[in-house]
């Protein structure tokens, strides 16, 4: 019986990395965009928040590329 433990390990590793990367980026974005006690956000902080959310968006686009067969078959 052939069990491809290397492929299983790879899937586990990639899943962990991709998931942690995405959640970290979005959490950072969420935190940066959270308003302070007075309800306002510094422009630089806001820009930083949107920047990390943009990176998360790129990850999602890569996922979409993987899902749609027309892009890679």
């Amino acid at each position, binding site marked *: 019986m052939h069990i491809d433990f290397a492929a299983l390990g790879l*899937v586990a590793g990639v899943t962990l990395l991709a998931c942690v990367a995405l959640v970290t980026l979005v959490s950072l974005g969420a935190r940066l965009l959270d308003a302070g006690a007075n309800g306002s956000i510094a422009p630089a902080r806001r820009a930083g928040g949107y920047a990390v959310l943009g990176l998360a968006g790129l990850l999602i686009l890569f996922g979409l590329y993987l*899902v749609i067969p027309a892009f890679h078959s």
Partner: protein
Amino acid sequence: MLTSSLVIVAIVVITALAFDFTNGFHDSANAMATSVATGALRPRVAVALAAVLNVVGAFMSTEVAKTISSGMVDDSLVTPAMVFAGLTGAIIWNLLTWLLGMPSSSSHALFGGLIGAVLVSAGIAGVHFDVVVSKILLPALAAPLVAGVAAAVATRLAYRIVPDPEGRSASVFRHGQTISASMVALAHGTSDGQKTMGIITLVLVAGGYQLSGTSPQFWVVLLAGLAIGAGTYSGGWRIMRTLGKGLVDIKAPQGFAAESATTAAILASSHLGFGLSTTHVASGSIMGSGVGRNAKEVRWSVAGRMALTWLVTLPCAAAVGAAAAAITLLGSAGIVITLVLLIGTVAAVLVAARRNKVTADNVHDTHEVAVIAPASGSGPVGGSGTAVPTHA
């Protein structure tokens, strides 16, 4: 002879579409349970979105499957009657688990049904048990672990970075969750929609109605896509309740972490050569997101029942498939008898489900799916009118 074969092919096609429908409503929750639970999406919007994405996904991927069973049985021995018996086992198992509100893998049910049918009709040599272990048993153990660990780590990180999400940050998590849940629905359409198309096409080829090696016909793609989409839209609210509320009371960051882990695991497994079932991945992620926040919040009794369901899915579907195959050995009359029994079972399950309905309106009023209406006080039953899901 020709007419009887046409009738059998037609019956198999219709049964395959019925299976596709149950596949849709069984797996609707995999993508949308957490989004509904956290209030990121209203229940009906969530299933409509998932349904549309499932249909789109089904149309995107029409690469015809080369084997019915991915090598689990000797496909050269499989006849349309055996496929029919296998589908019967899968449909009945999908409906019974739905009645109990238990997620279970539609692919495992299908393979189980086929294995049972082949065992009866062609003997033990027709089943490749080593493939069953390496493609079914091992992934069933690995999937929830892989996705669960990722979701647990990600949940812990999310709460480390945003300890008390509210207002803006909670809304960012909810949007993220909607996006990753949509990816799950789309990926589901590309894989599971295509499974039914493959079965129908192979049966058409076997019956001599289509040339071997040709793509699925347009009506097959259309009907299979619509069947899984309609099944998804119908919602499978009983399973939705278990996954969204029964296992863990999910909050927005957990929902997002769980959906991210599910998406990552499905994409990684479909592109790196180790197939994992969407159902096992999604349930594992949700459990992991509970562990990542507070392991005490996970309802381990529900998790245990779920694990038990997964273990018995293949043998149970196989038993029903085997029984159906034994009846179909009688010939045309056997097929008719099986069909009548199948319809009767479906009707009985639907009647049983009516006694304690779970709908879009009451899906998250309570966390239990009771088959018999619960004793007074343990939760509202049907039409309570409050559709507002709990917010994070």
